[in-house]
């Protein structure tokens, strides 16, 4: 099982590879830095689902869950450790869009 810090490093790499966004620190405020808007947020959630194999329930998300790489890593870790994860994801299936 990946540690939260490992996940954070992978999220940082994913942002660079898939979205061409270089984030200096795991604590950088992605909103204040102008990196996230509704479109990039959806793209990022889809990449996270693809990379970590868990779907993200948009209706349960709060912006704080996505505010920094550290927050995103915490979210991913929480969800991948969850025994059951029933949700409407962003990129897949019925009601997921």
């Amino acid at each position: 099982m990946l540690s939260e810090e490992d996940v954070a490093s992978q999220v940082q790499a994913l942002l660079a590879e898939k979205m061409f966004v270089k984030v200096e620190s795991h604590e950088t405020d992605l909103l204040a830095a102008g990196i996230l808007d509704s479109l990039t947020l959806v793209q990022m959630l889809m990449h996270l689902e693809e990379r970590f194999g868990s779907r993200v329930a948009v209706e349960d998300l709060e912006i704080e869950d996505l505010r920094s790489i550290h927050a995103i890593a915490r979210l991913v870790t929480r969800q991948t450790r969850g025994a059951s994860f029933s949700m409407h994801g962003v990129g897949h299936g019925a009601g997921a869009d």
Partner: protein
Amino acid sequence: MAQAQTESRNMSHVGIRIQPFTEELTGAVAEFNRRMRPAKVPFGVPETGVSSWLPKLDGRNIHQEIFLAVEGGFVRGAYTFKQQPFSFSGRILSVGACQMPISEGIIDKRYSLVGPKIVNDALRRQPLLYGLGIGSRDAAVTRLLTAMGWRLTVIPFFFKVRHGFRFLRNIRYLRTTRFRRWLFDVVAYLGLAEAGAKIVETALTRTSSDGAFSAEHVGEFSSWADEVWWRCRDRYSMMAVRDASVLNVLYPAAETRFIRLRIFDGRRVAGWAVVLDSVMSGDKYFGDMRVGSIVDCLALPEDAGRVIGASVRVLEKRGVDLLVSNQSHPVWGRGLKRAGFIQGPSNFFFITSKQLTRLLDEDDPAGVGIHLNRGDGDGPIHL
């Protein structure tokens, strides 16, 4: 920035909920509209929870509701949800339209999640979901929905110029540069536009009066419209239910601007059309022209061309300067072209959720059997 982050973090404890518009939120909606004004979004959230067009009434299967994204008493976004039965080659299913979605995320990135939450909420209510009439590929909502895997298609636009002079003097959509305005005015005042319009009309119009259908004005739709509906319902891969009860809701007799036409082939009712004859005033596209539009129509595909022909003759006799129509189905498009219309650039988009896209792909992967026009979605607004 620090203060904004603190406020955001405090607000995030409250969470954003999507809920129906209730009366106590009227003030918060007005405040939201005020905050959104600088974003110059071409619409606001209606400041009443009851749709003036399609209120939710007992026994009515077509209605609109407004849902709000609320955070601790503040409205952060909204959308209008239209529920309506559709026929998929004769199979009747309820379909939702997500209309006028708007999010405070446009002006404040702290609310970037509102857009996805709104779409997700609409999908939870109805996975078979579409949007119609989104005016730009670059609009935030278009980009968001396509990023979420929705499919975008263009509903073709057709137009026919009747009075070249007034067209060239008023068509604001084309009079965009000083040179174009000068050129259009020169052509108009030299009388070339009238002559040109006549030449184009003569060259393009291929309908003759032989075997032509006739049109009769009607006050409302009744059993004859039901017969047309039952005849046509399995001849299109997707179309909104258009029986008499639905048509009388969409085009009520009390709305005098709607011209309801029953179209005859001899004594047989071949179909119907709803047309508008609108005198524009300072319109951003049409200036001060008199615009005739074929808003909605239904007939068997083989009768479509002549139903269009009869509808066009009604509008031309009324003296319109320009005729317009958006039609998705090729037979209706061909009918318009036979009546002298030209296909123009269209910004009338049809965007479908993954679930609806999958359903359409099962039966009509090329989408050539879909019958949509300005009678769908938001209805004939701006016409």
